[in-house]
């Protein structure tokens, strides 16, 4: 037993030292002598790192009282199952769903406003829009021929499949062919949550900088389509188009990228034609 920390004692009350960081070499109850330290955070030879909360019983696998329960479960299994159910529900009705993800303020709502205006009378659309607070986006999107539903996440930084499941049947009525889900503005968290969409569409506005894909690769890796927005501001911010496209294709080779300005309409034709084809 270690006099300093008491490790190796089954059922011990844990470290007695106020300083958990110390080295020692000794034998634990007949096990091979070994050296380890009790720094609060450390790495093992197999590349794993973990932290010991202060005052935690240092229970290594040698402890006689300890046993291992194998779980092997996907932590987001419940979300994944609901997402699969959402997707099946949409498939039965012939609805194609896009999950729009981007930083806050990159132009998701304006792109949707203009998209709904241009698809009105051609393709029936529906929108679910998520924000932490307010129904401002829903109000902006209403009156454009598409049913709209706002989800206020209150504190959550992303939408989840359960929130979508709860409002799917209310917002997707007979005749809807395209569902747009406007996620909470965030380039990190929405990457982790499948909502049941058919494709994630990542937006990148020219004002954000060309290197966003390099800094936030997961969301670009997971997207099926990229849209560069606010092209009307490109000259004002010195947008380096080649660098941006290279950054996108470096983390996601071959990712198809639209370049447009929802405000001026530049580049919108190709986007709209793509959506019309997707809806068939």
């Amino acid at each position: 037993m270690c006099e300093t920390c008491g490790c190796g004692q089954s059922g011990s009350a844990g470290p007695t030292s106020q300083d958990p960081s110390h080295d020692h070499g000794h034998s634990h109850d007949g096990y091979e002598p070994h050296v380890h330290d009790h720094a609060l955070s450390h790495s093992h030879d197999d590349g794993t790192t973990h932290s010991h909360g202060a005052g935690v019983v240092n229970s290594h696998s040698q402890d006689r009282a300890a046993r291992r329960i194998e779980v092997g479960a996907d932590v987001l299994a419940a979300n994944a199952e609901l997402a699969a159910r959402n997707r099946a529900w949409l498939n039965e009705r012939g609805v194609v769903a896009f999950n729009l993800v981007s930083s806050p303020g990159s132009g998701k709502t304006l792109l949707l406003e203009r998209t709904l205006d241009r698809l009105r009378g051609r393709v029936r659309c529906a929108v679910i829009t998520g924000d932490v607070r307010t129904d401002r986006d829903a109000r902006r999107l209403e009156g454009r021929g598409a049913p709209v539903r706002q989800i206020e996440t209150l504190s959550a930084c992303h939408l989840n499949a359960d929130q979508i499941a709860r409002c799917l049947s209310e917002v997707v009525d007979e005749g809807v062919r395209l569902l747009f889900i406007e996620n909470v503005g965030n380039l990190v968290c929405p990457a982790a949550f499948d909502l049941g969409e058919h494709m994630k569409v990542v937006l990148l506005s020219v004002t954000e900088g060309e290197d966003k894909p390099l800094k936030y690769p997961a969301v670009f890796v997971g997207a099926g389509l990229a849209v560069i927005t606010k092209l009307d501001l490109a000259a004002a911010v010195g947008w380096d188009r080649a660098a941006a496209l290279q950054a996108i294709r470096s983390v996601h080779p071959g990712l198809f990228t639209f370049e447009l300005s929802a405000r001026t309409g530049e580049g919108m034709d190709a986007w709209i034609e793509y959506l019309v084809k997707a809806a068939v």
Partner: protein
Amino acid sequence: MHELSIAEAMLEQALAALRAAGGGRVVRLRVRVGELSGVDPDALAFAVPVAARGTEAEGAQLEVVRCPARVECEVCGATTAVEWPDVRCGHCGADRVRIVDGRQLRLESLDVETPAAALDGG
């Protein structure tokens, strides 16, 4: 920062597994976190003790096994680790690749202690 909700989901699974296995006290949680999972291991390490408070997993160690992103090449067939920021084959350099690893977020196992009193026959 969605790691708290993820930590809560993880704890729920862990405690269900614990109960199914006869109970006790969780002293270690072992999880695999993929580089493309959208989960930050440091934020998770911060969130798990908060989510575990007042449960049989309070004070448990979190052991995170980080899983790098790996791609399989459609050209040469090799499977290689991604060298960020270039998602391409580490063997032949082709960019026609498929992500085959790095998205996981898995609770692998729990180390559980039976209370000393129970062991002593108390």
